[in-house]
């Protein structure tokens, strides 16, 4: 029997923003598979023009409610590199701690609240409150910790207030940091339980070879700034980000697509893992082994697993940084600077992949020109080509419409796309 399918998922749920999946199979042949983003464009690049440089991070934070710390940090880095501002080491560590809080927060939201319902066969996290109280309880505790971490360091989890040009504005107290450290240590047990739970789940077995792009670690797992790297062997300096993304427009979606050596590439936790595995701490490497993830892995569903591994890694790295900060005693947290004209790029690994901000600043310290490229834009093409390949493989295996539709939804969710910001 020849299979026919017509899958139309309008406004996919449990992702940020609005996206549609469209699949047509006729007589067992794939006719069409599209991933289209349908969010209202918000024109941040244009709105940045003429703004004083010190308000750029505050404004661009509003591109995305989930990665607001990431946008703030990329914006700060672009401004600081444009004006040649160096920031003190303690400020760097505090910023990275806030960043880790956000990574933890965002990964947990995705793994437990957006993706887990699929693996456990329910519609949303709400029925899980009754059926899996232990898992929900653990997720709530971990997320509470991540929230507090951002609040303590950045003043607020969504749209931080203490991260400013030149460094940070405010330091946590010694007591706050000590308590935070203790709490992170205590919650590592919850990560171990999460690993146990995920060991029992089977993720869809699907492979499509692709290219993975991320920051390139020098001495540690990379988060803020540095060279760019791909699993196909491309290495470029941060300033050359346009050659790493090659954005283009397709006619069925308002968001742009991107490519490098192939028709598409992937960014995000799995890309960071594939490129920088050697910099993970030992415990995170062990987790990778237990959950069956080794670089270079080409199964997009494994992004969920890479996120769990990163959660563990950032928690352990946070403990180490807090120790250093306590030993240093915050002598210096903010550099003075005189605004001046210049151009700068800021590349930051946010939960879903590399985020780029580029600004040109004029003689009055105002933004003259801006460009932002967010991870989901980089992933859109990869999602799109994955969908086509996934459907082809599943049709061959004789899967039903319903099964294929669910796998398609899960695939898109695995990328944790953030559609509202991809059309900033």
């Amino acid at each position, binding site marked *: 029997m020849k299979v026919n399918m017509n899958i139309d998922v309008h*406004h996919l*749920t*449990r992702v*940020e*923003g609005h996206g549609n999946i469209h699949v047509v199979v006729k007589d067992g042949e794939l006719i069409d598979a599209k991933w289209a983003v349908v969010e*209202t*464009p*918000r*024109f941040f*690049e*244009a*709105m940045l*023009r003429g*703004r*004083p440089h010190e*308000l750029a991070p*505050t*404004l661009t934070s*509003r*591109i*995305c*409610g*989930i990665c*607001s710390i990431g946008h703030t940090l990329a914006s700060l880095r672009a401004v600081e590199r444009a004006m040649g501002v160096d920031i003190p080491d303690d400020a760097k560590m505090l910023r990275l701690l806030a960043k880790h809080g956000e990574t933890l927060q965002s990964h947990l*939201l995705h793994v437990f*609240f957006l993706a887990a*319902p699929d693996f456990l066969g329910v*519609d*949303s*996290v*709400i029925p899980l*409150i009754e059926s899996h109280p232990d898992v*929900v309880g653990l*997720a*709530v505790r971990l*997320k*509470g910790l991540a*929230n507090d971490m951002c609040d303590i360091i*950045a*003043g*607020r*989890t*969504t*749209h*931080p*207030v*203490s991260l*400013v040009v030149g460094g940070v*504005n*405010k330091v946590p107290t010694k007591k706050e940091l000590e308590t935070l450290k203790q709490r992170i240590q205590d919650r590592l047990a919850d990560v171990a339980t999460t690993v146990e739970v995920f060991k029992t789940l089977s993720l869809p077995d699907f492979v499509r070879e692709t290219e993975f792009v991320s920051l390139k670690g020098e001495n540690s797992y990379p988060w803020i700034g540095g060279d760019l790297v791909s699993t196909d062997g491309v290495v470029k300096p941060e300033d050359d980000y346009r050659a790493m993304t090659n954005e283009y*427009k397709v006619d069925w979606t*308002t968001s742009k697509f991107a490519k490098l050596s192939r028709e598409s590439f992937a960014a995000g936790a799995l890309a960071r893992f594939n490129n920088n595995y050697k910099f993970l701490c030992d415990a995170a490497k062990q987790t990778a082994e237990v959950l069956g993830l080794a670089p270079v892995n080409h199964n997009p569903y494994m992004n969920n697993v890479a996120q769990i591994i990163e959660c563990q890694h950032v928690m352990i790295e946070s403990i180490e940084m807090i120790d250093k900060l306590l030993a240093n005693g915050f002598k210096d947290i903010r550099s003075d600077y005189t605004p001046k004209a210049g151009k700068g790029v800021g590349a930051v690994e946010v939960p879903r992949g590399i985020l780029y901000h580029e600004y040109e600043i004029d003689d009055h310290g105002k933004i003259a020109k801006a460009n932002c490229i967010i991870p989901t834009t980089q992933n859109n093409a990869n999602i799109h080509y994955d969908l086509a390949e996934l459907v082809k493989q599943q049709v061959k295996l004789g899967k039903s419409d319903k099964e294929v539709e669910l796998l398609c939804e899960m695939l898109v969710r695995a990328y944790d796309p953030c559609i*509202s*910001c991809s059309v900033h």
Partner: protein
Amino acid sequence: MEYLGIEPKKARIGVFDFTCCEGCELQLANKEDSLVDFLALVEVVNFREVSSDRGQDYDIALIEGSISREDEVERLKQIREKAKILVTLGTCACFGGVNSIKNRFDIDDVVSEVYGKNKVETLPVRKVSDIVKVDLAIPGCPVSKSEVERIVVNLVTGAAVNLPKYPVCVECKQKGNTCVVDLGEICLGPVTRAGCDAACPTGKTGCLGCRGAAEDANFDSLREILREKGHSDEAIDERLRFYNAFSEELKNEG
């Protein structure tokens, strides 16, 4: 007991996002420990971000984001027809928010700056009350979760719903903060409605007025103080216009 025709414990809430960062909606989902308690009192029927259950009936509609497309206008009107109470959630919905900065530019320029020759549909940014009747406005960029939960619970149980009328400075002083104006920053705390627990000045950063004007806000005296500290009118205006949250007051100011 009924309030506005809604029985407590059964209030159905729909959350709908328009042009925005979804940060306000996220506040409701954040700190899930109280989300579970909150869900015991109300039923969320169109909380797209958290659930894939696409319920359609609701008593209270929470609207997040500003309005910048024709289809959004239609969707908003339909929601207004269905909802008994319509609440704007956050600065974007209440005032237009940061998206309003777009209105300072020529729309065609804005589109070509970002999308080149590809045409993308967009309208000038409007706040929700420009289009439909709003029963209650909860400002904030983002909203404060505890404030939203308190207000929704009060709505459902029929208790009074109030936002503070006094300015952010009051909360700021209660927290024992050093005034950032003395540190050389511009702060709009003196003219801005409190309720955020002075979030920005507590992080040693000037308030940008996301919650709109406090009662009897005196813009002239704010300008006077800031000018004396050496800030230019341009820098002060840039901040007063950041969230579009003082547009009415500034209009009257002339």
